């Protein structure tokens, strides 16, 4: 066998499994069809670490959510990604919905979520002055948090890579087959690989690969969620993650601060057929705007800087499908990872890697380094620290993205480190160049120049997000006879 373990997908789940697997001595390969980590469900979601009161008691969702939420803060220090325990509120908008609020509280307590409390309107209003006039009470979960899903996924993957995991991008898994004497053959559009075990973390495609080896079929529906991201000027409109308790006024959308000091509003929930259907729709965006008003007053949606859609990998049973396929020991699913998938990722990574290690009888990797230093955020330094840095590395004195105040030094770091950025979107997700209010209008040609220089490519070879997304299609007048 070429590998001990092949992981399908470099989303947050695949990257988490890879990272925790490198705690063991194993030859690990991660296959990713896109050009970077965090390109599917992991990149377009609510960026929430759920406290864990929502998932049904006794479910895998509850188990991994509560554990993941507990792990996340320490992990954010180990791997240096943005995390903020801002707390969350589930707002009850009508007296007649109170029994549901109470039930949610009890479910949360039964799931083992710490410090849950029901707050009455007066206290709620103090916590969130812009809360709806209809709000009567809320479930307060101080352990609820927000996280940067890009930084989290990139940190997990980078740490896995540093500890020896191999990543292959632009490599699409086509077929997985259980070999007669154990182990698996994995056919991709870039050749075939064999391994002793497989971890299926293929997001909206996870059912395809599961069903190739198992007769107990699963079925995943891409469930689209559309979002609006508001400018920094809207930051502070709410200071906790605000959910609306489903009830008399229907099901709402969340309104939350982000770790980068924006406000995020969404998502919708529409089942679609196309696993690549990440387009936003006029109806969806209108729905987000309308529903944002249910729990929070005057959400400044006019300050939208971008809108986006993500797909949740919804399994028919609305439950995580995690564990070994009985017919073929060594094939492990991480399927149906929809919300609270991001929150659960560290717990799933830890648990599944342990299952794999037990199956393959892997021994501990004594050389494992669990700590990782993230890309330095120059804007967080004091003036004297910053000047010392610029003296050493002048590129930190050159601002490239003016909206988010990102220097060339940070962009170079994003490109040069392990699993570094190779595309405009890759740079954007690592250091936020192009993530601000002008949406890369100013900095994209400059980031393209830096990418071209660093990667030894021509400007025309720089893409937005992989080989099929060129930004430049030729030189001027080249089509004129």
């Amino acid at each position, binding site marked *: 066998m070429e590998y001990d373990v092949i992981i399908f997908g470099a989303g947050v789940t695949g990257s988490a499994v890879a990272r925790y697997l490198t705690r063991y001595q194993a030859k690990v390969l991660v296959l990713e069809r896109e050009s970077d980590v965090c390109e599917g469900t992991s990149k377009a979601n609510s960026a929430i670490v759920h406290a864990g009161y929502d998932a049904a008691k006794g479910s895998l969702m509850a188990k991994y959510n509560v554990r993941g939420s507990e792990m996340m803060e320490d992990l954010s220090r180990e791997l240096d990604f943005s995390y903020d325990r801002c707390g969350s509120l589930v707002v009850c908008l009508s007296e007649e919905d109170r029994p549901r609020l109470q039930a949610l509280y009890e479910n949360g307590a039964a799931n083992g979520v710490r410090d849950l409390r029901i707050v009455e309107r007066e206290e709620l209003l103090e916590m969130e002055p812009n809360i709806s006039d209809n709000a009567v009470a809320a479930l307060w979960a101080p352990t609820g948090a927000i996280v940067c899903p890009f930084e989290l996924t990139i940190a997990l993957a980078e740490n896995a890579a540093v500890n020896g995991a191999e990543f292959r991008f632009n490599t699409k898994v086509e077929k997985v087959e259980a070999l007669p004497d154990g182990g698996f053959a994995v056919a991709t559009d870039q050749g075939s690989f064999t391994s002793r075990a497989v971890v299926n973390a293929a997001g909206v495609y996870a059912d395809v690969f599961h069903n190739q080896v198992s007769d107990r079929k699963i079925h995943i529906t891409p469930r689209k969620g559309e979002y*609006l*991201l508001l400018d920094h000027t809207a930051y502070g409109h709410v200071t906790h993650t605000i959910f609306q308790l489903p009830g008399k006024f229907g099901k709402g959308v969340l309104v939350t601060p982000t770790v980068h000091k924006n406000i995020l509003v969404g998502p919708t929930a529409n089942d679609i057929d196309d696993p*690549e259907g*990440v*387009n*936003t*729709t*006029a109806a*969806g*965006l209108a729905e987000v705007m309308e529903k944002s008003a249910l729990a929070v007053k005057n959400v400044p949606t006019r300050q*939208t*800087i*971008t*809108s*986006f859609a993500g797909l949740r990998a919804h399994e028919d049973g609305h439950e995580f499908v995690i564990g070994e396929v009985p017919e073929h020991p060594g094939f492990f699913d991480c399927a149906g990872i929809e919300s609270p998938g991001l929150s659960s990722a560290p717990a799933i990574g830890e648990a599944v890697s342990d299952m794999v290690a037990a199956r393959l009888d892997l021994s501990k990797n004594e050389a494992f380094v669990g700590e990782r230093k993230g890309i330095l955020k120059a804007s967080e330094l004091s*003036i004297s620290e*910053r*000047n010392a840095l*610029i*003296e050493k590395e*002048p*590129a930190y*004195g*050159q*601002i490239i993205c*003016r909206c988010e*105040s990102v220097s060339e030094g940070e962009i170079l770091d994003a490109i040069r480190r392990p699993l570094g950025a190779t595309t405009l979107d890759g740079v954007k997700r690592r250091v936020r160049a192009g993530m601000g*209010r*002008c*949406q*890369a*209008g*100013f900095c*994209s*040609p400059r980031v393209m120049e830096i990418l071209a220089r660093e990667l030894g490519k021509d*400007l*025309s070879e720089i*893409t*937005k*997000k*992989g080989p*099929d*997304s*060129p*930004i*430049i*299609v*030729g*030189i*001027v*007048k*080249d*089509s*004129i006879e």
Partner: protein
Amino acid sequence: MEKVNIVIVGGGPAGLAAASAAYDAGERSILILERDSMLGGILNQCIHNGFGLHTFKEELTGPEYAKRYEDQVAARGIACRLNTMVMDISPDKVVTAMNREDGMFTIQAGAVVLAMGCRERSRGALNIPGYRPAGIYSAGTAQRLVNIEGYMPGREVVILGSGDIGLIMARRMTLEGAKVKVVAELMPYSGGLKRNIVQCLDDFGIPLKLSHTVVDIQGKDRVTGVTIAEVDSTNKPIPGTEEFYSCDTLLLSCGLLPENELSRQAGVEISNVTNGPVVNESLETSIPGVFAAGNVLHVHDLVDYVSEEAAAAGRNAAAYVRGDLVEDRSHEIRLEFTGGPRYTVPATLDPAKMGDSVTIRFRVGSVMKNRFVDLYLDDERVIHRRRQVMAPGEMEELVLKKAMFEKHGETKRISIRVEEV
């Protein structure tokens, strides 16, 4: 802390004109801070001609026009720091900036001229539904790629918005070998200058569809097409009018936004109509000694007027530093307007503080035909002009002379009234 009498934030056409004018008014301690590697600002990528007709009575390209002002600045020996980003301006005019050589540094300015220009409205701010592939550019980004870098951002182009940069880019892309299929404009009128519609669209047979917008963007990796639909009087797409255009590129020219993040940090009052600072007759913002000019103040159509306005700001900054600008602002009269204007720059005027004349600029909110534009001091009409057509895409101006006030006597109200003939 380093001290400089006049710090000019931005070395584009506004900053350059302000610097030279301040120098010519006798000021010698002037510093221009420019974030790009060269002076000239956005003019450097505007390689088409038509600049300078008012100022120089000849047709220059953008870089040529910029060069004349750069030469003036160089001839006067005015200091510039390039590749330097201003990070903060404090209410007491401490300017914090950063570059590779000096790191982060602060300057105590005697006066500040805000000349940061503007940026383009992005796809996200427009809330256009669809995919988010490569191939969607603001017109200015595409202009930079084509005119500065020499690359083609696409072959088959649809343009949303008929702002001047979009119109100019329709012609440029055509000349460089691309096929521009259509320009769609949400409003029932163009946002650009009439001359650009004629010279950039009509002359090349490019259709302009008014009251149309993009309702969908197709293409997962690179744009493969866009759907355009007609809109009703509330700008809502009309079902059944959708039309698909196969293309690999969507250019957006949907408005410019004055770039006032620094002004806001400093605490400068910003108009929610222009998105620029509220200024008085001296182009002074709500913070004494902080002046604004050019596209950071309000978006202009013609650079000639940017230069003219900025020169006034530069002279006034010099006067402020000398102590010749009266600090008392309690006699400012707020300009009133009815019948069409959406704003005026300046917003207020103190007759005692104005020079021989003050140019009042404004835009109307919709296309208006056959109007009188009158300016009243109290109930006395001192300006009476007839305008065949006024449009939001063309800035209007009135020149108010000191002599008018002297003749009128004490003035309590200044009002612009636009009325049908």
